[in-house]
């Protein structure tokens, strides 16, 4: 698989089809992976792919606007690419997508490899990317979904009384240092000016405190409803261990219930929150 990725990326770079190929290389711990930008066929030899390749590379596409780039896409990355195309942030013709069949990625952090699948991979219903120009790997027979053996974290939290749920989020948000890692790593967070950086009106400003952190964390999650593909990168990036994916998954499940919509699955499906119909039902 790695040889095929390297060969394909080298071809694309050699032929001039793309200026840059975004994939993964081994991280400085020698164990995990990090994003890698190859600019020549020689550099394509550094590309790797395995269960430590956790990053959602679609996040880098808006940075590359105006350049033709190649990108390695797992199913979750491919869904994010669809979101970006649908939202007008990425031109389909500017991106050559090398899809890769994915068996799930591990809960790794730098210096600490693991063979435990990330929770998102247990919930994920796709093993094959939803959009690609070239596919690497053998698509598994349908259905592709795995099913988590135990109840989800969302359900577990929902079974608790309101006061306990409040305390759960209060204690997590109180720890937030507002480093913006959750935002900066998110493929759907590309606004030139985030509401949290806005000075007038002042939604949060620079203050790091419970009320501001609460507005930030809830505002972030709400802005991603119907757009988040559950790549869980925000949670992985959080140095303070805030379980942001629980909020994301809750919102995604509500959007699915209400609109039958899943972010990034179908590039033509209208967006629930950007579509208005006459006589539509008021929720």
């Amino acid at each position: 698989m790695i040889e095929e990725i390297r060969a394909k990326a080298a071809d694309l770079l050699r032929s001039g089809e793309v200026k840059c190929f975004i994939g993964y290389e081994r991280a400085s711990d020698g164990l995990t992976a990090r994003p890698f930008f190859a600019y020549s066929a020689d550099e394509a030899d550094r590309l790797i792919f395995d269960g430590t390749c956790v990053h959602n590379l679609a996040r880098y596409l808006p940075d590359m606007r105006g350049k033709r780039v190649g990108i390695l896409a797992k199913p979750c990355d491919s869904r994010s690419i669809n979101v970006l195309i649908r939202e007008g942030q990425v031109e389909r013709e500017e991106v050559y997508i090398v899809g890769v069949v994915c068996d799930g990625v591990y809960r790794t952090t730098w210096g600490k490899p693991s063979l435990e699948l990330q929770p998102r991979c247990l919930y994920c219903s796709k093993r094959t990317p939803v959009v690609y120009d070239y596919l690497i790997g053998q698509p598994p027979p349908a259905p592709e979904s795995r099913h988590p053996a135990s109840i989800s974290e969302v359900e577990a939290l929902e079974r608790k009384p309101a006061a306990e749920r409040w305390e759960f989020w209060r204690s997590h948000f109180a720890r937030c240092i507002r480093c913006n890692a959750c935002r900066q790593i998110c493929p759907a967070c590309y606004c030139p000016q985030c509401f949290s950086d806005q000075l007038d009106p002042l939604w949060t400003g620079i203050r790091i405190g419970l009320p501001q952190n609460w507005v930030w964390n809830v505002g972030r999650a709400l802005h991603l409803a119907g757009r988040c593909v559950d790549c869980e990168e925000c949670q992985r990036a959080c140095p303070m261990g805030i379980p942001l994916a629980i909020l994301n998954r809750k919102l995604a499940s509500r959007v699915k219930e209400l609109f039958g919509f899943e972010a990034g699955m179908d590039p033509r499906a209208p967006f629930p929150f950007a579509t208005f119909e006459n006589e539509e039902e008021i929720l």
Partner: protein
Amino acid sequence: MKFLSNGNLRGWLESLMGMGSLIAPVDLEPGLTLFSQVRDPGEVNLEYEITPIPPKDLFFPSSEALFRFSPSRGYEIPRIEGETFLLGVHPCDALGIRLMDFPFLSPPADPRYEERRRRTTIIGLGCVKARPECFCTSFGIGPLDPSNADAFLVPVPGGFLVEAKTGKGARALASAKLEEASIPIPKPPEVSAIDVEAVRKVALSLFDSPYWGRLADRCLSCKVCAYVCPSCYCFDIRDYPTRDGAERVRSWDSCQSPLFTRQASGYDPRQTKASRLRNRFYHKFSYFPDEFGAFGCTGCGRCVRYCPVNIDIRETLSAILRGEARIA
């Protein structure tokens, strides 16, 4: 050197809690240890590996009101009170506090920082294990180096070797039941060093290297590296409304944020991710030493561990030394 047995640790911590507030590493979640106010000595984890946030926020809080003003109450400065014992500070983090002193205590000293510093006793803790990201020995310290602490503990079988380094440290240890030490100081774990002096000499000649652009490709422009850094000290200030007035709030900020250098005119001297990322290295390995005579880095490796995309400061230093940063 004296010996404090594990059995006598609790009693000592209780006495420190009686003298002031005790801040020490406490496990908050699985895998998450933070310097926190201790409610019960049993919470203290002196075998902790690392805290994502260094103890800098004790002196330079992530956010604080510098003063408040209102028509009814006039002008008020929030008071800083009480005494604090900061326990379990590894040598890298103790050096971090020393480095924060340069900007905050150089005249004119920052009164809030100075007041908190004066009221705090730093009790250091030697490292018996090194983490893969450690490179503290590059900066003249080491895993068992007691400098920059008021008192220092070295974990040994059955307890700690204990030493007071200052009057404050002796006062903190006065209530501890200490015994004569019969165990020698253990051998420190190996930590590899980088020749940072050599980096400093060549750094400025690489300012325009395309290396920074390539490195910045994967940078997210988040602020994790700065907020977990024991020596990053940048902040922003703004007024927040209160019920009948306002308060002036100082909060952490970072040169990695695209807003950091944007001027009122709209012009930003550091417009690209590469220029912001480069600034982080130059501030630590060129500008800070030029200004204060010490490197702005402690080798704690937090930025290595917590960077979501593995921008590894040690790789950059090595790339500079090997001349790779000169790629055309």
